[in-house]
């Protein structure tokens, strides 16, 4: 069960085999996708829009269901069993393209809501930890503000801190910088880079080539619901093997 292309060593955190998904209208979004992610690994998924990359990582925490294949996350097989789904979601954090912060709660309350309700931790302890997390992403001064008062970059950093508040073992990023103004992309990428350095297991859907080059252990290119190429970043960006990869790289360059 070892992955030859993995640079990090450690237990298998995500193992997806032959995942296929059809939307109710008959469109097949995923056509047999395989992916393994080891502990501490950073995997970047790239690909043109409509390639199924967002849909694919959203199956990891059961925001999307799938019809064929199997996904095991941190030893828990994803099935229709609701208890399994809740168990997986507690271990997997997710950062969305649109931030999805809760606008009616303060920044601090955004961070404390889930640990208090789901993990049943005492509120004082959760708040102390939340403030530490906010400090880690560099926005501890804004703890009492509402999300609407923050810039896009600050909101996305709060969203990262919020997903960390549940102490997940895996973080999923669904195009975390795609709806940010250009000057705010860097501050979010810097936080993600630091997380990767601290050993967080991360699966990142993004178009940021520089981030993929500097941080990723592996780059996966998806097109038309399939994995086209999977390689270490250096090899992927300098010497892609597949025609589809070359075409994609020429388009985003």
């Amino acid at each position: 069960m070892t992955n030859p292309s993995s640079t990090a060593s450690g237990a298998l955190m995500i193992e997806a085999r032959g995942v296929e998904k059809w939307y109710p209208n008959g469109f097949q979004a995923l056509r047999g996708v395989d992916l393994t992610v080891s502990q501490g690994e950073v995997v970047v998924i790239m690909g043109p829009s409509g390639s199924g990359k967002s849909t694919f990582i959203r199956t990891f925490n059961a925001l999307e269901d799938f019809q064929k294949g199997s996904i095991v996350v941190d030893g828990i097989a994803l099935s229709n069993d609701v208890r399994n789904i809740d168990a997986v979601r507690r271990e997997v954090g997710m950062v969305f393209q649109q931030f999805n912060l809760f606008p009616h709660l303060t920044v601090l309350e955004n961070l404390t809501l889930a640990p208090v309700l789901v993990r049943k931790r005492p509120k004082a302890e959760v708040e102390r930890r939340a403030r530490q997390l906010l400090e880690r992403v560099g926005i501890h001064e804004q703890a009492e503000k509402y999300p609407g008062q923050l810039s896009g970059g600050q909101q996305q950093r709060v969203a990262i801190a919020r997903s960390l508040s549940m102490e997940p073992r895996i973080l999923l990023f669904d195009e975390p910088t795609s709806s940010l103004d250009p000057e705010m992309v860097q501050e979010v990428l810097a936080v993600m880079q630091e997380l990767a350095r601290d050993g967080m297991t991360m699966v990142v859907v993004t178009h940021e080539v520089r981030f993929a080059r500097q941080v990723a252990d592996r780059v996966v290119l998806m097109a038309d619901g399939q994995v086209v190429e999977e390689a270490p970043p250096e090899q992927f960006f300098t010497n892609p093997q597949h025609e589809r990869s070359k075409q994609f790289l020429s388009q985003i360059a």
Partner: protein
Amino acid sequence: MERLGADRWVLRLRRELFASRTDGVITLVLVGLLLGLGGAFLRWALFQADWAVVQVNSTLFAVGRYPLDQQWRLWLLTSLLAAATGLSWGVLRGRDWPPNDRIAAVLLGGLALLVPLFLQLSFALQARWWAIALLLLGVRWAAGRWGNPLPPPWRRGLPLLWPVLYLVGMVLISGGLGLMPVRPSDWGGLLMTLVQSTFAILLCFPLGLALALGRRSELPLLRWGSVIYIEFIRGAPLITLLFLGQNILGFLLPGGLAPDRVWRAAWVLTFFAAAYVAEAVRSGLAAVPRGQMEAARALGLPVPQALIHVVLPQALRVALPATVGQFITLLQDTTLLSLIGLLDLLGVARTVMANPAFLGKNAEVYLLLAVLFWCCCAALGLGSRALETRLNPNTLSAARA
């Protein structure tokens, strides 16, 4: 400063009312119209109208045929309501009396002095109204002085005061627990209107919420059940449902719940309003982006908690104006109860106007009804606007900053 203010006022008047020749003409015509209509109305109200019809029947308009020797219970309830209002008001506002509060206080005091005087109540009754107004304002002052900020457990408990008071009020009105029972058919006038509308308002909200959630449910039976209920109710006129309810609710509801015509009507109003509230809530739910539920679920919150803590607070804020609009409609719809023979405000009014002694005094009676309903609806509207401001995180944080 005063004179400067006056100058500015003149300038502002000129700018807003006489900026151009056309503006001036429009202003003059409108002022003329208003003066003419207002003058005619005042001439009628002061010199031609015969307010005896209201003065003589004021108790009937207020409580219907509620037994005279039991009316102390209603006075007690009114005092309790005044105290609770003062308490909530004071705790919310603290020591400050912003302009709105001062206007409200003056209006309240003025009404308590003038209305009983106008109704030519006995001195004892007039004094009671003064005492109740004084109680409200006194508690408001005291609660603002000492009750703000309230220690957290009390502050969280305060909203509970109202449902408790509602139950106490229902016991006081209808009897039981050692009090002499007063049959619902003896309630009337404003009392009947308020009991019916508050009952329906309180119950239609949770019911409407459940229907709105049911309509979005993934369980087909629940979804189609909610859709059919909502569309059936919205497709039928209330008056039809009221007559229908008088005939069938006795079979549909467990015996104790709708023992007589009054309660059957209250349930019909509730079921009717719930369908409209459900649509208001549904529009609120639709306004919350899908990502909110996804983010909550991704954090591990189960669906009920995600609804309660993330989706509903946002949805209900959007739905609030439409919901309160529905409550106001409901209050006005209670007048239909007179058509099924209940003595709500309009019902009492019709019996009064049918009395040969007050023949031809319809204008006075209808004007009274209009004013009473306007007061109730204005109170609901003001309350909802205050709530909206309070629930809006943008104004909230602006207030904090």
